[in-house]
């Protein structure tokens, strides 16, 4: 069970959280103007890196807030967590992706 640093609540056990997959996949402003290929990428294609991954979590059974996290998918160690709409402090390439 991971220990996750919720930006609102501090370190809390994983079972209180739900993972929402890759972070920073913004919904297009005007979806109707998006072509089929780009739309399918928005819907389905995800970074799936071996290494640092930017992902979304919600503290479902806590403060109920979504936030972002950088986590190494090989060690499962968190690099950092940061609020929705925020940017990570770390500057790995994956973090900016």
């Amino acid at each position, binding site marked *: 069970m991971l220990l996750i640093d919720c930006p609102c609540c501090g370190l809390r056990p994983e079972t209180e959280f739900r993972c929402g997959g890759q972070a920073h996949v913004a919904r297009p402003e005007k979806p109707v103007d998006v072509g089929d290929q780009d739309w399918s990428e928005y819907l389905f294609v995800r970074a799936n890196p071996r290494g640092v991954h930017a992902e979304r979590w919600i503290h479902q059974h806590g*403060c109920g807030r979504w936030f972002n996290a950088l986590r190494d998918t090989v060690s499962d160690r968190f690099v950092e967590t940061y609020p929705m709409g925020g940017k990570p402090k770390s500057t790995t390439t994956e973090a900016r992706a």
Partner: protein
Amino acid sequence: MLDDSLYARRVSPLDGAAKPASLPGGVTVRQLKPEARFSLRVKAGAPADAAGFALDQKINSIVVRGGRWSARLGPDEWLIGGPEADAQLIAEEVEATLRDRPHSLVSVSHRNVSLEISGANAAIALNAGCPLDLSDAAFPAGSATRTLLGKCEIVLIRAGAEPSYRVEVWRSFSTYAHGFLVEAAFGLQNAA
């Protein structure tokens, strides 16, 4: 005018099931009396106070003022409570205070059932299903947070320094939560 005999009476889901009982480990589990409770949401920039309910406390803490209490569960979320008879009054007062800013006040008086577990080993019993650190240092008097008890979500409140915890649970989970706490007390036992 409605005939008196038709007036509905309240029935709690645990009526009959949750008699206060002294359990192993010196733990007591009981259901608390009904109270007025609301989920209050106010976006960033909430006032320090609304109708006597503190709003400026740290996240995951509770402030009790007279008969009214407010537990801040998130940056823009409070669970507030007061005497059952004041339900209407609380709603009106809070609405009046917050009229000019985006907010939401929704009654959850019937959604939630309140259990209390107390006794020197209450925190250990809770830890049968609650994964949080409930030590005095990590979860002192004045703490309140949403968390888990086994397979159901609860709001766990420790208002005072004594080993007494309030467990707010959705009503259809209350039988489970009550049963879980009782079983947890039995789980405290060791070989004689």
